[in-house]
């Protein structure tokens, strides 16, 4: 079985996107942005996968303090054996998707959630 990751990292591209989103002032900290984008990706039914070329940003235990996210991913991606890697993939995909939307549409946080 493939070994799971222990941290959640970002690519250079998604790091820039994170900074861009933080700049808007909608979130208190980067983790909030990352969790939001990850949920956005899950809702969009992003399939199982992995993102390469990432640099560690947050420890998995810090990112998912209550273990809710790992449990959620185990339930929604039953075939996945590496939930933290999945978490990381969903964060990176989510960041790209949200940034794409915000760049093309002049919308606020409530509209993104619709």
């Amino acid at each position, binding site marked *: 079985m493939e070994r799971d990751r222990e941290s959640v990292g970002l690519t250079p591209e998604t790091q820039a996107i994170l900074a861009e989103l933080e700049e808007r002032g909608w*979130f208190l900290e980067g983790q909030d942005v990352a969790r939001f984008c990850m949920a956005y990706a899950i809702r969009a039914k992003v399939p199982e996968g992995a993102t390469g070329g990432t640099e560690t940003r947050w420890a998995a235990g810090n990112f998912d303090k*209550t273990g809710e996210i790992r449990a959620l991913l185990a339930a929604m991606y039953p075939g996945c054996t590496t939930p933290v890697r999945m978490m990381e993939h969903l964060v990176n995909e989510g960041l790209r998707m949200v940034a794409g939307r915000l760049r093309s549409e002049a919308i606020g946080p409530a509209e993104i959630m619709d």
Partner: protein
Amino acid sequence: MLRLKRLEVEGFGPFAEPQVLEFRDAAGVTVVYGENMRGKTSLLNAIRYAFFGTVLGRGSRVRRLHTISNRDLASEGQFGFSVSLTFDYDGQEYELVRECKPTVKAPSNDEDYAQTVMLRRGTSTLGPQERERALQQIFPKEVSRFFLFDGELLQEYEELLINESEAGHRISEAIERILGVPILKRGRTHLTQLSEEADKHAAKEASKRQETQAIGTALQQATEQKEAHQKEIARLQTQLQELNAQRTEVEQYLQSVQKYASILHERDEAGARLEEAAKDERLCRGDLQKAMGEAWRSLLREPVRAARSAAQADAQKELDAFLLSLRAKAVADGHCGTCDQDVRGAILDRLKASLPEQAPATAPSGRVSAAMSRLADLNKFTEADNTGEIRLLWKRLRDLELEQVTLKDRISDLNAALADSDPETLRRSKASYAEVLEKISVVKRAIEDEGKKAEEKDQNIQRLKKKLDSSGTSDLRATQLRAKMLRDASEVFGAAVDRYKANLRARVEETSSKLFLSMTTEKQDFSGLTINENYGLTIRHRDGRAEEARSAGAEHVVALALMGALQNNAPLRGPIVMDSPFGRLDESHTANVIHTLPQMAEQVVLLVYEAEVGKAKMRDVLKDRLVREYQLERVSARRTNVREVK
């Protein structure tokens, strides 16, 4: 009464050569005709100059004497001018000569001139002090506006209607001056002063005598105490005067920068609102950030619910399959592993019938737990939906951002409008205005308190005086009688002020009404004029109502009626000299005014231009009350001669 006899001017205004006007010794109107710039106003100014040494220009501003010299003569290097006025006063003939001569070859301002004045009464020339006293008595400057006036000065009458205005107060005082009220007021003041001195003397004398020592001493003490209070009142009144002057100064400043005051107020309010909006924005943003921290749950709410439903369905399917497999095994084995009973006969047939054609062979293993395990994982997720909250917070944040942008723009515009002002000085002035008003209030209360104390002391003094009067010895009587006489006289004069003013106002009202009705063209509608405490006049309709809105022309006629009424009722009487007074009047009113002129004063000098009123009309209206006519004839643009019209 003052009556003009002869006016001679030389080098004054357009009158280069010596020019003479002789006024006949008969009651009536002398008319001087002249086009614009011919010298009508200069004649009025010549009389003013003779009496006061000043010349007025537009807006009643004092003109520089250097500008009065005839321009033609000045271009030839001849500067200076003189005015000689002969008049009768109180049965005596006077000659007043005032000259303005240059002290340098080419004068350029007033400092380059010297003025000389000579006043002859009968055959003797008065010394400087006596001359000034005489002139002050004959024709006081403060009341000259009621004798020498033009259309512009008539406008000042409107100030009377504004009670608290400085100008209105001055005019009101000037009217009382011409009516003789100061004679009584000054009499009261001097008699009071003398009576207090006499009382003090009487008290001192009484304290020296054994039989009246106690009362005398008590009286002295009470008088001293009362004086102390009066001194304090005088000090407070001086302070009040200073504070009022300060208040006026600040009021004038604030009035001049009124527009800035309101802009500054608006800017300060906008600034405060901006600060508030920024604070609200910070709080709102904080709330939004907090809400967005949990927003990932809202995003996953529906997916998780869907997954939960699916997991529940799966779990149910697996349970059903498991139960079927248990039934199939029981049929196959003929024995139920769950209740450990044999399955035979009808129960076996029923069980066989309930199985589908293709029954599962064995019980599924582990799969029930997969769906259940998914469900258990999904149930660990804490659901939330704060989309609505986020929507509201986001809208509020946008509104606050927009408000701030709008306010910043507004503040920028207001700052530009304030560029020429000094907001700091304005703010300080407003603060100092509030402060000075408070101080005025405090001082007024203190004056009132001191007044009450002085009044108490005075009552005590009166009681002691009565006692002294009845107990004094014969040698004290002279002192006491002197004091009593002065006291009584002071009281009489005090009461006379109010009575005289009331009588005067009634008479002025009656006379001005008569004159007004003679001059107005609305004799059917109006019944007369009503006077107020400040000598302001309102037009009265026949139905008793006051005419509120008055045209400039009506104001003119009312002011002329007041002038005439003052002339008729004042102890101080003299000629009226009017310069183009018909400016705002129509033909009918003009004719009525001319017709009424002889009723206003015994001697009237009218300076007009013929387009206002022609000679034929003047002669027709005035008839035998037209005593003489003069024409101001053009010699050149800068020279005028005076010719009698025969």
